[in-house]
């Protein structure tokens, strides 16, 4: 820090000593649980040996060998493609439904109905994927499931959901919307609440219909929020939702062709083959590529519309 007096640091700390003291536990927490593991990224470059010094960090350095293993396997393209495809479907469908719900909720005039609808819409957000998987069996199982009952009732052939990989991207997207879209609409509702009421009043005086107000005012005003959500989601586009996939399909090999994502693959490599080196290499690959996508996405949005960019 140029131009800062010596002792400026100590002076600042002593001036606000209680405030810094309050922050200390939290800062130590982030150091221990978030920053210290970053040193572990080095595992991606060693042939891990459990008895090596420094918790295995002292294992033999092998350069990019762990990455070679991963990229040489024919799996990597498939699992990366699956991860990207599923996340793209989740992000777009999620944002569209969240925005739609928020706009609709905002137009609802019956207070009671609005409140009750919202309660039910938010509830699934708090239910874990394990419970969702118990319920999804009730819906999707071949012989007893409700959906197949309905299909048979209408004279259609039942679908063997748990053996048919091609239906799962759609099913997962629907389950995700079920679980998260209602709650996700809160962010949009908050932005709608922040829109200046005078704009609506002026539009109403000029004779704009409700539909026109939705499409000419509300939705365009949500552009910044949408851009922010997009950038935040794109940052994790290379991270598969392990919790969801593991809970819903566990390790069903028949569904792997569409649902095996980077994270389930890493988990298998770690738990079944104890492959620490490759798991770390894949983790590093995800972090780096995820960071690049965030920066690129932010730059694209910056070009299109300066105000909407995150940084």
């Amino acid at each position, binding site marked *: 820090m140029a131009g800062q007096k010596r002792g400026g640091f100590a002076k600042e700390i002593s001036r*606000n000593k209680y*405030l810094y003291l*309050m*922050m200390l*536990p*939290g*800062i130590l*927490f*982030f150091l221990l649980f*978030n*920053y*210290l*593991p970053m040193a*572990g*990224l080095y*595992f991606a470059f060693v042939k891990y040996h459990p008895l090596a010094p420094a*918790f295995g960090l002292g294992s033999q350095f092998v350069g990019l060998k762990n990455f070679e293993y991963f990229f040489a396997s024919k799996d990597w393209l498939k699992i990366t493609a699956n991860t990207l495809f599923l996340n793209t479907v989740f992000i777009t469908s999620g944002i569209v439904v969240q925005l739609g*719900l928020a706009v*609709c909720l905002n*137009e*609802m*005039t019956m207070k009671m*109905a*609005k409140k009750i609808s*919202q*309660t*039910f*819409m*938010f*509830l*699934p957000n*708090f239910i*874990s994927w*394990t*419970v969702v998987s*118990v*319920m999804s069996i009730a*819906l999707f*199982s071949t012989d007893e*499931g409700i959906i*197949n009952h309905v299909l048979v009732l209408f004279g259609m052939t039942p679908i063997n959901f748990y053996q048919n990989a091609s239906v799962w991207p759609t099913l997962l997207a629907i389950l995700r919307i*079920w679980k998260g879209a*209602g709650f996700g609409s809160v*962010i949009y509702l*908050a932005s709608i*609440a922040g829109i200046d009421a005078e704009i609506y009043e002026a539009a109403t005086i000029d004779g704009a219909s*409700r*539909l026109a107000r939705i499409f000419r005012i509300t939705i365009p005003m949500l552009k910044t929020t949408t851009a922010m959500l997009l950038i935040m989601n794109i940052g994790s586009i290379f991270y598969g939702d*392990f919790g969801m996939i593991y*809970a819903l399909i*566990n390790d069903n090999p028949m569904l792997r062709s569409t649902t095996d994502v980077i994270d389930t693959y*890493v*988990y298998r490599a*770690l738990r079944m083959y104890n492959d620490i080196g490759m798991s*770390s290499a894949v*983790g590093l690959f*995800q*972090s780096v590529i995820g*960071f690049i996508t*965030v920066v690129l996405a932010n730059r694209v949005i910056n070009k299109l519309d300066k105000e909407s960019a995150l940084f």
Partner: protein
Amino acid sequence: MDTAADKAVIAACSIICVLFAAFCAMPLWVALVSSFTNENTLIREGYRLFVKDFDLTSYKLVFTGSSDVMNAYIVTIVTTFFGMALTVLLTASLAYPLSVESVKYRSKISFFIYATMLFNGGLVPNYLLISRFLHLRDNILVLIIPAALNAYNVFLMRNYFATIPPSLAESARIDGATDITIFAKIILPLAKPILATIALFASMGYWNEWYRVLLYIDNRKLFTLQFLIMRLQQQVDFLTSNLNASARAALGNLTIPTIGIRLATAMISIGPIVLLYPILQRYFISGIMVGSVKG
């Protein structure tokens, strides 16, 4: 005034919302109904929307047949309670100074926290940290401490604190109050909505924890409810192989309702959520709204 077309828009929007709410409620309802249905009827006729052949066998088995469920319930309650308290305490005490303008390094510290949202070491280093450095395997603390603080909650809370007029703290300081007194006596009482929001988020996270159990816990006595459900899904006989003698005798030669046990366990695990959530709902909506709009 609304024209006929405007009224049609309102009606359409209302119908969409009500339908979506019904879509959200339906799977929960089906699972609830099925958990009270006789297992044989369930298998013969499939899942339905209304109870046929009301039967409490599954619930009886879950509560009395084996100690696993009650055990998991206790572990879940303990981790949720202490985890929630720790989360609120750590988050609030880190977030408040970040909202005070006279703290010179607050933007640097904010960035230090923000960076954890962009980078992380990944599964392997975290696994080694917990199991080999901190030796927390098979320790209940692993289900409480590592999840206690995250950047998202800190920023949500900081943004809320920032909306409280600094003049309140200023006048207390002139009266000789220390920052800790100001925080405890003035700031926290004014921040109830955000404290409730974070408490709710944290409780739900702890209540639904199973991932850390999968990674770090082998001792059956430390399983959480959600992990138990996961086990029941994968291993049908997980509970029933451990049924005690009296439960077996009570069952007679009836088959053990495996689907029913899963459903009943799932239902009792979401019971407290469904009961508590409407009470907390009014707090958290305002908490999230204020916290997220300021970004």
